């Protein structure tokens, strides 16, 4: 078990070193995918490795000249990785229209490093499942993306291969959910850094391999019992595109936070919804996108309110409070934020907000406030 965890850890600590070595050994194509809504299954079915872009742990050097100070650190880091040639091992980059930063990235890459192969997919941001116009458009977009990938790899992406990819992905999602259920039933069984590394590894490595490792890891974990402690069970929310910094996770846990569940993209959001395997494959991918019961601040969703979803999740996890990580300059998250506060208060759910940017993360500034918050939660005040 420790071997598997340490493998996941090493992948998540040095994602680009690992991917580059993987390519050298396996001689297969790698497609970098921008978070959060791309159906990776199509890339997988093309015989390529889809790798979700991760925030680099290295200092940003080159992209400060391209971005004004008021854009998010994740987009800056992504461009920096590309400009510093760190991602040159990749065959291309896929930029779904998650937010305006992807649009700008597409442009900046075209000007600054025009030889990078780009794919774009317009995933309509309005999740109005009842309006066929948007479903039809996303279906067409996925068909177009598939055709472009086919032209790139030089062979057809058959329905059979797509079905297989969907199965592999569904299996991975189910395994990750099993891990999360386990964490809810046994708080403190596994620390949040380890959980993060498991999810990050799943975003990077071939899903088949990840599935194999998870099948070995889970039974071992299930046998384990958590060490009894005096911590506070917390649900961690926010951080739209990027993983919460490991330093911040360690810091929170050192103060007594026990992350019992999360509402993070590099977390539960990534694997919460399955594809319907009985549908034709592209339809199934479209269905997964529109029928999700997981609202997300980057999408307009008239059918389900994000704050209601978060409250449900907190209650199901028996968390005593929520820590919301707001990535500096993440505009969609800002719009969701007031409603979260409005709804969490009357629901009696204590919440704590951390505005953060990995480049300038100051833990000392958070300490006193977080300690006071944890005391308040413990005291039931």
């Amino acid at each position, binding site marked *: 078990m420790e071997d598997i965890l340490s493998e996941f850890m090493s992948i998540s600590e040095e994602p680009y070193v690992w991917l580059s070595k993987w390519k050298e050994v396996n001689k297969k194509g790698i497609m970098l995918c921008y978070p959060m809504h791309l159906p990776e299954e199509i890339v997988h079915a093309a015989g390529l490795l889809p790798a979700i872009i991760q925030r680099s742990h290295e200092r940003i050097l080159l992209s400060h000249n391209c971005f*004004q100070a*008021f854009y998010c650190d994740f987009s800056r880091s992504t461009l920096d990785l590309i400009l510093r040639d760190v991602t040159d091992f990749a065959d291309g980059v896929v930029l779904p*229209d998650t937010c*305006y930063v992807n649009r700008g990235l597409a442009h900046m890459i075209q000007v600054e490093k025009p030889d990078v192969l780009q794919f774009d997919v317009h995933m309509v941001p309005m999740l109005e499942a009842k309006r066929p116009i948007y479903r039809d*458009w996303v279906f067409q977009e996925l068909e177009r993306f598939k055709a472009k990938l086919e032209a790139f790899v030089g062979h057809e992406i058959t329905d059979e291969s797509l079905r297989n990819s969907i199965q592999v992905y569904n299996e991975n999602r189910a395994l990750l959910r099993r891990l999360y259920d386990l964490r809810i039933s046994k708080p403190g069984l596994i620390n949040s850094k380890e959980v993060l590394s498991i999810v990050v590894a799943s975003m990077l490595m071939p899903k088949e391999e990840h599935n194999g490792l998870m099948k070995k890891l889970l039974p071992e974990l299930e046998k384990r019992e958590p060490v009894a402690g005096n911590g506070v069970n917390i649900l961690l929310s926010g951080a739209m595109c990027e993983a919460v910094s490991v330093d911040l996770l360690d810091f929170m846990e050192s103060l007594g936070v026990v992350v019992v569940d999360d509402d993070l993209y590099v977390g539960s959001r990534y694997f919460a919804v399955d594809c319907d395997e009985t549908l034709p494959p592209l339809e199934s991918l479209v269905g997964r996108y529109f029928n999700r019961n997981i609202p997300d601040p980057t999408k307009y969703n008239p059918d389900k309110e994000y704050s209601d979803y978060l409250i449900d999740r907190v209650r199901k996890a028996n968390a005593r409070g929520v820590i919301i990580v707001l990535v500096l300059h993440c*505009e969609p998250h*800002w*719009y969701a*934020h*007031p409603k979260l506060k409005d709804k969490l208060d009357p629901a009696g759910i204590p919440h704590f907000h951390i505005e953060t940017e990995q480049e300038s993360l100051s833990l000392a500034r958070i300490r006193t406030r977080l300690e006071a918050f944890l005391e308040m939660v413990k005291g039931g005040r």
Partner: protein
Amino acid sequence: MRKFKQNRLQTPKKIKGMTDHFYQDLLDAPAHGKKVAWCIGPVPFTPLRAMGIPFVHLENYGARIAARGAGGFLQKVAEDWGLSKDACSYMRGAQGMSLCYAQDVQMPPEIEKYRLPKPDMVICINYCISATNIAEIFYRELKVPVHTIDWPYQMAKDDDRKRFVPYMKRNIEEYIGFLEEQTGRKMDYAELSALVGRLREMATLRGEVLDMAKNVPSPITTFDAFISMGAGNIWSGTQESIEYFKELKAEVEERVKNKVGAIENEKTRLMWDFIAVWARVGYMGELFASHNAAVIANAYSRLVMGMTPEFLDPENPVESLAKDLSYAFLFGNIKERIKWMKEVIEEFSIDGIIGHSARTCRVVSMAQPVHLAEVERLTGVPYVMFEADHSDPDFYSPAQVDTRIIAFLEMLEARKRKG
């Protein structure tokens, strides 16, 4: 003290009256039993006009309250509610207004005159993530029907535009269907055609007027163009908008004939990239004029309604509106943007570029350092960037911005002197 003189055009002075008239009609509309629409983003307004639905373009409203010094109160209401001050200042102002209804926030008398009527419907075009975000807030807080229109972004692929047209056509058709459903009336397509015809005429006139800035000295500045935007935006498709631009054209033509410049003793000619600083239009006009610098070209003031007049065909109004959105490069296609800037630099004899990075308008400020540097590389024309905001005056720091701009203008002057 430098001596300078701005020759102010007379026609743009009419805009204040036109806008006041527009907003008063809007405010009176509910008393006349009319349903009111709030529009987020450049929603095509001609279908609303054709159906007699009074509307507000919330970005125009944001510019209006900023220009009249009334934005701060409403933005603060939204900030007190919890919205970050770094969120789009247009949307903060609009959310402040919506909270006056959703949470009965009282407006002081000096702000009361900028009240908007409560919407009966909201229409949102997906041009920025803040637009769809605020649409969801309105949907939940104001509990009104919201209709969304998608607008796929041109990720600078050459085949994008053609691909978008049928999809945008379907979007416009559904938008019309929504208006019909809300009003219980059918669209008057003959009226829509007439409106599209007038939109084309207005947009063509607007282009002709703005192109006259190629003359040396330039008879018109970008600040006149900014002020004139309202006529081409909220008044789009009306005879009033045509009359406005006809009058402006005649006034500017007269100047060309008499070789009268908008800035006396014009020494340098500049391009503005991109969005206006609405709370400081007059102030900035003076700042540049005081250094005999004429800001004469920008894309923003051309790119409101009727972005591509060549595609507007009254015989096919719905397809025309679909093409107008599909072919606009306002929010996409960096290659087109760079090409356009290069051409303008040559045709308008531009000496330098002023880049306004709007802190809370990330969608239009995105990639600005990259495209400005690229344009400089291709043309040799230098640029300066400053950070301010389109609608929040708190983000304008005169000490920093003015000094930077003045230093740039002095550098350009020195360059010119050296030849």
